[in-house]
């Protein structure tokens, strides 16, 4: 069951505003999906959590070397000093 409150909570933690239309039809649609994935409950909890995970050896990892390739990565909303202007915090 996805109530309107639950939906509102999910939207809040996902930081997504819903339109009125979406707020109306999402509870049912999401519920359909959750019912669909509920079948997973049939699976045993005893099976090992994860077998066969991809592994990598320590010596395959990146060396501690500095590599700066220059150029601006952020172009939006910069102040004169180079700070990024963000929205208010409070």
């Amino acid at each position, binding site marked *: 069951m996805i109530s309107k409150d639950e939906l509102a909570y999910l939207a809040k933690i996902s930081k997504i505003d819903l339109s009125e239309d979406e707020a109306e039809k999402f509870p049912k649609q999401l519920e359909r999906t959750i019912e669909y994935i509920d079948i997973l409950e049939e699976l045993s909890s005893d099976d090992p959590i994860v077998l066969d995970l991809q592994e990598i050896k*320590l*010596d395959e*990892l990146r060396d501690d070397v500095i*590599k700066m390739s220059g150029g601006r990565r*952020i172009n939006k909303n910069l102040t004169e000093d*180079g700070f*990024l202007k963000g*929205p208010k915090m409070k």
Partner: protein
Amino acid sequence: MSLVMIGLEIHAQITALKSKLFCSCHGNYRDLKPNTNICETCCGLPGTLPIINRKAIEYSTMISIALGCKIPNKIMFYRKNYFYPDLPKNFQITQYNVYGFSSIGAEGIFELDDSKKIRITRIQLEEDPGRIVYLEGGMNVRNSALIDYNRAGVALIEIVTEPDFTNPKEVRLFLNKLSLTLEHLGVCDTLLEGSVRCDVNVSIKGGNKVEIKNINSFKEVEKAINYEITRQNSMFNRNIKIDSETRHWDDRKKITYKARSKEEEHDYRYFPEPDIPVIILGDNFVSNLQDHMPELPNQRFDRFVSKYKLSEHTSNILINDKKLADFFESTLKVYFSPVEIANFLITDFKSLIQDDIDSSDYLRNLKVKPEHIAELVKMMEGNKISRITAKDILVKIFDSGKLPSEVANNTNAFKIADEKTLMDAVESVFNTEKSAVEDARTNHEAINFLLGKVMKFTNGRADPKIAMRLINNRLNKSNR
């Protein structure tokens, strides 16, 4: 005031790393223009992937070993999901101890002193977010945020302890010892601005835990805890319930204040980081590190006592000041006389440098080098100058950096061993201190007084042994 329980959550940057944890930008972001130490990856641009720094794993393992932790065979990373403007991906890549996978260290133990041990819950490797700079005032001021991502992605180590501390002094001792350990390992420079953060949780009399965040230096921690204990006690005494909450430390007003409760309601939705495979550390990894990692403070202490035959007291003073201990061992390379050099360093030398002990330049830019001290001690041991003279010379060369021998020559500082000169001095003193001379015939104390006067007469240069002999001879002569 019993039953105080304090636990710590420390974040320390692995400042010894050249690059960030998941990309090749500079690990040291200080003094750089905002948003210049960034790349596609640490900005979280679409399509970029974290590429982990092998050295970060080595250094964090060293810290785990030093804190007595268990090191797993394999490690995994997790995502901690939350939104915040300083977090480029709106999740942090970190570690999590769950479902059989451990972080880089767990279940450690740290000896505070002979009677107390602190349990280390876990140590994990994670990335630092960027910084939000507020235009004026603190976080409470209504201004737009200015964001700088230079720091985003820098490697952090998080150390979490059990609430084993029972008073703020223990916490301070722990933090000092931890800093010392990190300094010895050479992985974190805790004096660098912003390199350490400490969150504390405090509860009294078995009550609710209060978390205090935003303590930005180890020095402020003791103050914050003291304030909080007082606050909680006062509430307890007035029968006010202490809520489990998060508070912030204001280091200007020196108070803790309640943080907005929104911050407490986070469902971080942890799940394994898909872009980083499980990392196999290998069977020999830990033993190799142990063999090659820098000496820990207690190991160095043992070595000073057994190899150099220093007293435990002296060794302790040296060990607790790593740069001084390094200076000491450098001096030994020039002239091997551990006991004398150590004594000289921890007394006369240390009193001159004590004021700078907290600066990151401490001992680094000193004009006086190990060679100078070696020469001074060598001259003392060769009986060429007295201890007092040595101290004088040290003061003189401290700002100039001239060699002691040079100064000694120029100022005629060498010990007077010449008996004729000394005899003149003794005669002079005997003439002026007639009553003391009388006393000296019966009172031994007075002989020392006369010696002191001879030393003064010769500006400290008289060889005390010879002078004493001459004084005694003179006394005996007049006795006859």
